[in-house]
């Protein structure tokens, strides 16, 4: 690991001031919460901060609560994955949130990892993670993409460009994007709220720019608009029965009137470069009877724009089948009153 300086401010405002001012002075700054992504990438020399601002002890109540608020739920950004996964009220009323957390990482990692850090996790592309490969447009803009003609079995088929096909590997983000979550951010210029769907940027020609966050910006919380989402689930397909990233996954929330879909939300993981809201599939399903045939039509429509390469063509039928399975599982749920 390269040398770095370390500060642990006691107050959120101080932490943001330190991060924003140091960044403006050309010092590379990273916030440190659970450290489960950051320390991994620092050991690989992929991320090279000169200053770590440790936010793991900030005491502001807004960073740590799981609360019902007017219009929905609010989670503080320093809540751990394990804490939110264990919340019984969320498990009853928004099971897709709970399952997308439980099926990610390991118990140890879930105890350490913050919600704010979780959504900012980086790709698992083996070229991104290995600095001995010069060609990585995410690490070094303009250097090329070694995955295009290299190993890309775990890479994306949706949202890709000829500059980057790296998959977004997270699970919880699919529940967030499906349920129209919002995030709260505080930065040098003050606080703002934005749609979670607007946080991540498609790679396009600039894969090194992954989010809309400015230097020093700190995610402080998440808001889930309340909704009738008891009929929801998260299905994750991976090479192993547990403890592996998704080859394909689907976060689904359904409102049914008999067999007719009055509302549906779908987030897709493992197959896209960013958290993926399957708006095309949703449009196919709304107002129609849900059965395997309509679910398949919706999946076909969503993946019509997929762009696969030699080793990840399987992700197209697998991604569709995962969406279909999640829809039918959600439909079959027995929902108590």
């Amino acid at each position: 690991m390269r040398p770095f300086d370390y500060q642990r401010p006691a107050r959120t405002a101080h932490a943001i001031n330190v991060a924003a001012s140091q960044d403006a002075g050309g010092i590379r700054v990273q916030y440190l919460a659970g450290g489960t992504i950051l320390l991994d990438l620092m050991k690989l020399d992929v991320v090279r901060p000169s200053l770590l601002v440790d936010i793991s002890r900030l005491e502001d109540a807004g960073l740590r609560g799981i609360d019902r608020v007017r219009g929905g739920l609010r989670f503080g950004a320093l809540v751990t994955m394990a804490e939110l996964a264990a919340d019984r009220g969320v498990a009853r009323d928004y099971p897709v949130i709970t399952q997308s957390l439980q099926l990610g990482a390991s118990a140890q990692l879930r105890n350490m990892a913050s919600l704010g850090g979780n959504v900012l996790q980086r790709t698992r592309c083996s070229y991104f993670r290995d600095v001995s490969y010069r060609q990585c447009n995410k690490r070094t803009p303009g250097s090329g993409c070694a995955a295009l003609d290299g190993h890309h079995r775990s890479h994306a088929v949706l949202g890709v460009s000829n500059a980057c096909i790296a998959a977004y590997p997270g699970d919880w983000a699919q529940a967030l994007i499906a349920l129209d979550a919002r995030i709260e951010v505080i930065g040098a210029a003050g606080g703002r709220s934005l749609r979670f769907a607007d946080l991540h940027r498609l790679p396009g020609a600039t894969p090194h720019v992954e989010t809309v966050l400015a230097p020093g910006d700190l995610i402080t919380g998440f808001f889930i608009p309340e909704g009738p989402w008891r009929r929801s689930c998260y299905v994750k397909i991976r090479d192993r029965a547990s403890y592996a990233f998704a080859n394909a996954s689907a976060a689904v929330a359904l409102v049914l009137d008999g067999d007719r879909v009055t509302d549906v939300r779908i987030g897709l993981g493992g197959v896209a470069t960013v958290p993926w809201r399957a708006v095309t599939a949703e449009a196919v399903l709304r107002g129609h009877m849900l059965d395997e045939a309509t679910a398949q039509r919706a999946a076909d429509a969503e993946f019509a724009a997929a762009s696969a390469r030699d080793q990840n063509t399987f992700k197209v039928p697998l991604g569709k089948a995962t969406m279909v399975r999640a829809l039918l599982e959600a439909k079959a749920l027995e929902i108590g009153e």
Partner: protein
Amino acid sequence: MDRVSDRGKAKLDKQQSPQVSRRHFLTASAAIGVLPAGVEIASAQQAIEPPAQLTRTITLNVNERRRAAEIDLRSTLLDVLRDKLSLTGSKMGCDHGQCGACTVHIDGKRQLACLTLSVSAEERDIVTIEGVASRERLHPMQQAFIDNDALQCGYCTPGQIMSAIACVREGHASNADEIREYMSGNLCRCAAYPNIVAAIEQAAPKMGRG
């Protein structure tokens, strides 16, 4: 790793045994062995020492004792437990948070020492494998691992036991499927898994939780 200056800073380790441990003897011999003839140990210390601003003295609460250590800011809790505090029960398997061999308890929760900066672990309550037995007897989980032959080479075992104790306390050990799922962050290349599951099933009722 800077072995020679470790010895010089042994005075900071209040738990230092008066005897030279086998580990210290071996590492000191190795350090001396690689110096060219005529080079003083003092100048080797200067060559290896990190820049001054990269080090600081921290105090950690480990196994109900306060332990001080001078650390490199880049060191993880795992590095400090093993190399500064001589608590070598926690193992380095992958150093990237993927294998679980370094599992310890921090404030009562199972976490990975290899992805925890040592400086970030100050003022937290840390329990390692060295801290789970009582003065009189092994922890029920340790005994169960022995009774069920839940290890072969033993390298993953401290992490498995720390993870298993926490798994039971979390209430995630009610059946074999749940145990397998909630222990999935601890890898065992000897594949002792069936016996690990049996050990946890044996120990859970003795710990008062299922």
